[in-house]
């Protein structure tokens, strides 16, 4: 058994840096990324069903993704339970900026109208809008929605026109091209 695990370790150790970088790119800090990468490697090495004909790098990626998603889910659950983690720690966004009071009032009104307009869309369109607003790349959206690139671009273009109609104003930065 130990010979098998030693052999698995030797086959996998070259990938350690890439797995650490994967976690860092998802927003985990350096120490968290190393800890999580080590979790992944230990799980793979200890798994008796590690390679059911699947390439070891592909299997390692699968375990790393599951580990990342589970950790992110755990943190989201802590937030819901009132652990007061800053949202940036989970979603990796930039800090808030201070806005002058008059601009704040105008923005509040715009956001309110925008949200009311989005609420009038059907469920699928709302999903698409929220994904687009999250900054998901076309490729990620195509994959999540099982749409081709052309179908996605057409859907976003139609949504832009619909929202412009509902809000009554131009929408800065909403491409859909």
């Amino acid at each position, binding site marked *: 058994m130990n010979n098998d695990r030693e052999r698995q370790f*030797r086959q996998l150790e070259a990938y350690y840096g890439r797995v650490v970088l994967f976690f860092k*790119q998802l927003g985990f800090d350096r120490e968290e990324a190393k800890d999580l*990468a080590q979790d992944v490697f230990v799980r793979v090495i200890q798994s008796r069903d590690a390679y059911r004909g699947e390439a070891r790098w592909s299997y390692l990626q699968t375990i790393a993704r599951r580990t990342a998603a589970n950790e*992110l*889910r755990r943190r989201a659950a802590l*937030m819901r339970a009132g652990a007061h983690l800053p949202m940036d720690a989970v979603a990796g966004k930039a800090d808030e900026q201070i806005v002058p009071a008059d601009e704040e009032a105008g923005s509040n009104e715009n956001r309110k109208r925008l949200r009311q307009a989005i609420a009038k869309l059907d469920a699928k369109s709302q999903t698409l809008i*929220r994904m687009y607003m*999250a900054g998901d790349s076309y490729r990620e959206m195509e994959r999540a929605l099982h749409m081709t690139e052309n179908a996605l671009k057409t859907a976003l273009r139609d949504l832009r026109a619909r929202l412009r109609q509902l809000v009554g104003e131009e929408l800065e930065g909403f491409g859909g091209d």
Partner: protein
Amino acid sequence: MISREDWQTARDEMIAEGRQRYEPPTVEEVEKLFKGELGEAEADRVRNLLTYYPEMARAMTMPFPEEAEGVLTAEETEAGLAEIRRRAKLPPARLPRRRRTPSRPLALAAGIAVAVGIAGVAFWRSQLSQHEGVIKILYADGERGGLHRPRGPYEQAPIELETKTDYILKPVFRPSHAYREYRLELFDLNAAAPRSVWSRSGVEREADGSYQAELSTKNFPPGRYRLVLYGVDEAPVPLAVYTIRLYEP
């Protein structure tokens, strides 16, 4: 005009509200969504939840980095791998042997032996290359299919080679970085302890991603063997393993 900042803030507000109202989907649900294994209604539900937890979607779809040059220091890498060994209950890595400076007569004798050896190997290779070798492309353990026995654990299916045959082996492997050179070594697994029975140093990576070497199985008995590909910078690092079954046709 609705500005980009309005978008961003509206999005943050919608996500914050959604997170308070809805639990995130499970990782299994997200995996099934991306594999297309959910019915339409269920897929819509999971997709909708994911919009409130975009970081989970990103974890499942973001491409893996192609390389990790400079991400970790050598010390961090060593410490991380040592920690993995400890947690996986593997013995600590062996330290490299210290080299001793040979005496002058010994160095001279060694130099002559190496020169004779190189000439001999070159002659042997010239003899071998005159024959037509059977080209065999090898994929590493873990990259090939396995054997599912009715009882007992899953096994890696070995590569089948015939005895009394001249082969041109082409083991395929893509290392995480380019090594100074590569080495192939064949271990006989039939004895109580594996022993090295053949090796080839100075192997180069070919354009097709293989590490070509000629091997004659004329003098090897049937049984199980293991071919190991090493990358060599300062010390050899095992990169890939190819389990072989040698049989009489």
